[in-house]
């Protein structure tokens, strides 16, 4: 099997080189058959890498420990599904997955556009295969997953050697969410290669209309969808597995996935301006180049160990190759952009600061600013070492300071942007669209403020003497104040979205005689892009509310024996039992805890501490979470005392966390709806334009 895999990798390498050469030479000599052959070869690389990947799957399933990579990341007693997920538990397999997905996407693009865009496609093939060449050469020469275990005999000769058992999979990865998280992440990161390739092809072939954007709109959304899902899965994994009570810690690895997502989000929005108004052409090129660069950079960060991170699993020599690849792709793309600059002239200009295009512009500006801040924060230790010779790191306060206000402003734009007219919004339409949402937002703010949210925390007397300006500054930095703003903004956006659906559906049911529910469904299905977008935005509202809840987390940490009680807010926990469990894979110490809410028992919880038997006998904390719409009670058993009679227990009270996951689900659904083709509208009675009410006109204007 390993030989077949090796051979498939070698073949993939050769075919990739051929595909690039055939495409480029084919364009040069205008030889259609050669171009077609290059395209077929691109599909062929997918077949090769699929074969290689399946070989690796087989080797893992049968636990062939003569293969170094298998021996290093699996063991006999590992359950089958973790044996398979162990494939991407390390460097070589992760890269193979990346490369495999890339060729998979390339093959899909080839099939989808088999006879379309004849001028552009050969370049698309060449660019995609160019990226693929990097990965296939990595598989073959640098991080080959099929290498054998060898031992060094006296005298230095290398002798094949089969260990009795494997080293095992890192226990932190033995969790179902984290088993699927990497493939989803790669599907997202790799996905941006497709719009990137089309953008490059558009410039190379000088076909700079919006063909490349229209062709790749869905691809971008798919990539964006996977990337966002992966980020949330990662957050969920961190929350339930790492045991520190939170789901986002601004760790370099998290940031590595956030950066391409931020740029991708900016790109998704700004392409609309190009489609509708023929503006921002250069900008969109810059964004897609940056997005793809960030995808590569993210992979580089997680795989190279440049910056230290709690979950940087790999530390290896591939960093240099990756850096070189990034520099080459980025400089090539930027050179091309500079060269084609005269062809990318804007057809229109910004007319008013209160307009759809201007809201998109500000959306782009702050998303980019956010990405820049994150990038700066991640790379600060590296830069400061270059410049000053000392490593200076920045922590979560840095990231939060910048990104929390950005997120709130972004939420504001989410509510305002879609309802503003192109070119210039009239004062009248502003009043019509935003009076009620603003009123609701204000009302929610007042209610929360009265209930004590967003109030300044009374400081020590000596601090009260500060200048008013400083006091205000200190006040506005409190997380409670930000949470208040965040919830007000969320209310604002939620009301605008609900109203859009309501007005649209009402106008529709007047025109067609459908009932309200039907009208909502058909409205959505006939304008998937717009209403899917609203649903995505609504998902963000939910996520945002959950995130605002993080301002009010509290925790207690204590040593408790059997029968002891721990109180947190309206909850009380009682330790009932401390016991030991044994499975083939791990041994676990478990605390059984009863949870009471206002004196009534609501749940029995069982936080554990496991010691895995394979490899280095790592221990993991298995938290136990009681989750409701209002809050989570999150219990960590961090070990027993030396005599085994008392347990160290931490309890976190985390408000609104479930909203984050709910928001994620809504977000995903919205994206899927936006991906659907518009349903054709059947024959129906349309009201004459003159008869339309103000509201119907409003809807028609926005949908067009």
């Amino acid at each position, binding site marked *: 099997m390993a030989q077949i895999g090796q051979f498939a990798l070698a073949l993939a390498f050769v075919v990739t080189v051929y595909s690039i050469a055939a495409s480029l030479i084919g364009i040069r000599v205008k030889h259609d058959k050669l171009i077609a052959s290059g395209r077929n070869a691109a599909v062929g690389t997918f077949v090769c890498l699929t074969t290689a990947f399946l070989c690796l799957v087989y080797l893992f399933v049968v636990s062939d420990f003569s293969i170094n990579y298998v021996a*290093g990341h699996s063991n006999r007693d590992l359950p089958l599904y973790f044996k398979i997920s162990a494939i991407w538990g390390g460097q070589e397999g992760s890269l193979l997955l990346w490369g495999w997905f890339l060729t998979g996407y390339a093959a899909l693009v080839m099939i989808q556009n088999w006879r379309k865009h004849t001028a552009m496609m050969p370049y698309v093939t060449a660019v995609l295969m160019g990226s693929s060449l990097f990965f296939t050469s990595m598989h073959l020469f640098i991080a080959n997953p099929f290498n054998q275990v060898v*031992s060094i005999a006296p005298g230095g000769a290398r002798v094949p050697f089969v260990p009795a058992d494997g080293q095992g999979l890192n226990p932190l990865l033995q969790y179902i969410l984290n088993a699927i998280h990497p493939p989803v992440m790669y599907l997202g990161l790799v996905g941006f290669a497709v719009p990137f390739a089309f953008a490059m092809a558009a410039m190379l072939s000088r076909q700079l209309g919006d063909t490349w954007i229209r062709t790749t709109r869905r691809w971008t959304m798919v990539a964006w969808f996977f990337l966002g899902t992966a980020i949330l899965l990662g957050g969920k994994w961190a929350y339930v597995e790492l045991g520190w009570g939170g789901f986002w810690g601004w760790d370099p690895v998290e940031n590595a996935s956030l950066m391409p997502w931020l740029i991708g989000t900016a790109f998704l929005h700004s392409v609309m301006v190009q489609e509708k108004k023929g503006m921002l052409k250069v900008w969109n090129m810059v964004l897609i180049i940056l997005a793809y660069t960030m995808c590569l950079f993210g992979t580089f960060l997680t795989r190279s160990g440049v910056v230290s991170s709690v979950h940087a699993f790999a530390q290896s020599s591939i960093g240099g190759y990756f850096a070189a690849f990034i520099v080459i792709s980025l400089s090539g793309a930027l050179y091309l952009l500079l060269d084609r600059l005269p062809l990318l002239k804007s057809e229109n200009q910004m007319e008013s*600061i209160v307009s759809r295009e201007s809201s998109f512009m500000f959306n782009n500006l702050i998303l980019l*600013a956010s990405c820049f801040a994150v990038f700066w924060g991640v790379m600060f230790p590296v830069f400061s070492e270059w410049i000053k010779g000392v490593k*200076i790191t920045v922590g979560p306060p840095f990231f939060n*300071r910048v990104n929390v*206000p950005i997120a709130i402003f972004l939420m504001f734009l989410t509510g305002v942007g879609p309802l503003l007219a192109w070119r210039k919004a009239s004062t009248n339409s502003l009043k019509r669209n935003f009076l009620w949402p603003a009123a609701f937002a204000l009302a929610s703010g007042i209610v929360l403020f009265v209930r004590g949210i967003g109030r300044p925390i009374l400081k020590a007397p000596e601090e009260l003497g500060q200048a008013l300006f400083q006091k205000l500054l200190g006040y506005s930095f409190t997380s409670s104040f930000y949470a208040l703003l965040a919830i007000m903004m969320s209310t604002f956006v939620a009301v605008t979205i609900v109203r859009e659906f309501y007005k649209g559906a009402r106008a529709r049911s007047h025109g067609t005689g459908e009932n309200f529910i039907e009208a909502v469904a058909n409205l959505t299905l006939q304008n998937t892009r717009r209403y899917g977008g609203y649903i995505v935005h609504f998902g963000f509202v939910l996520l945002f509310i959950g995130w605002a809840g993080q301002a009010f987390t509290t925790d207690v940490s204590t040593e408790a024996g059997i029968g002891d009680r721990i109180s947190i807010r309206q909850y009380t926990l009682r330790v009932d039992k401390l016991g030991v469990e044994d499975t083939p894979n791990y041994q676990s110490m478990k605390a059984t805890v009863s949870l009471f809410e206002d004196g009534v028992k609501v749940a029995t919880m069982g936080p554990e501490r496991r010691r895995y038997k394979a490899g280095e006998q*790592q221990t993991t904390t298995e938290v136990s979470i009681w989750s409701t719409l209002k809050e989570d009670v999150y219990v960590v058993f961090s070990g027993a005392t*030396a005599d085994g009679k008392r347990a160290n227990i931490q309890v976190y009270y985390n408000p609104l966390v479930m909203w984050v996951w709910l928001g994620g689900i809504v977000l995903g659904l919205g994206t899927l709806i936006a991906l659907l083709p518009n349903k054709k509208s059947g024959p129906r009675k349309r009201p004459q334009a003159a008869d339309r009410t103000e509201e119907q006109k409003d809807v028609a204007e926005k949908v067009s």
Partner: protein
Amino acid sequence: MKRKQLKFVVGSSVIILTLAFLAFSGYQESKAYYLTVPELHAMKGASAEKQLKVAGDVVPGSIDRTESKVIKFVISQADEKTHKVETLHVKYVGNDAPPDTFIDRAQAVVTGKLGDDGVFVAHEMTAKCASKYEKEAAAGVKRPTE
């Protein structure tokens, strides 16, 4: 046309300057010097007031959990040039439980300040397992004796 564009320029500048100010204040609040144990000893005295992150390997057997809510341990690292192993006594007083990866020989990074008595008081800590076998696996070589 000119005046309209001015509005965009002013609007964008206000946003960017605000963010820059926030970034700077966040940087001031959270910056920490990242040092290895020998580097910390080399800059003696000057470091007492600064927030520091110090990296080193947990000395086997040094983890002492006898006091409740405090963990005492020793981290060590060899100097890159002289190869002399330097050690640092650490008192961890953070709220969160130490990570699962915090065991003998783990690579720990502690955040806090150096006390006058030479004991480092940490309120935050991360730890990674000694990645001994990862490195060898990368080289494709493993010795059967291990």
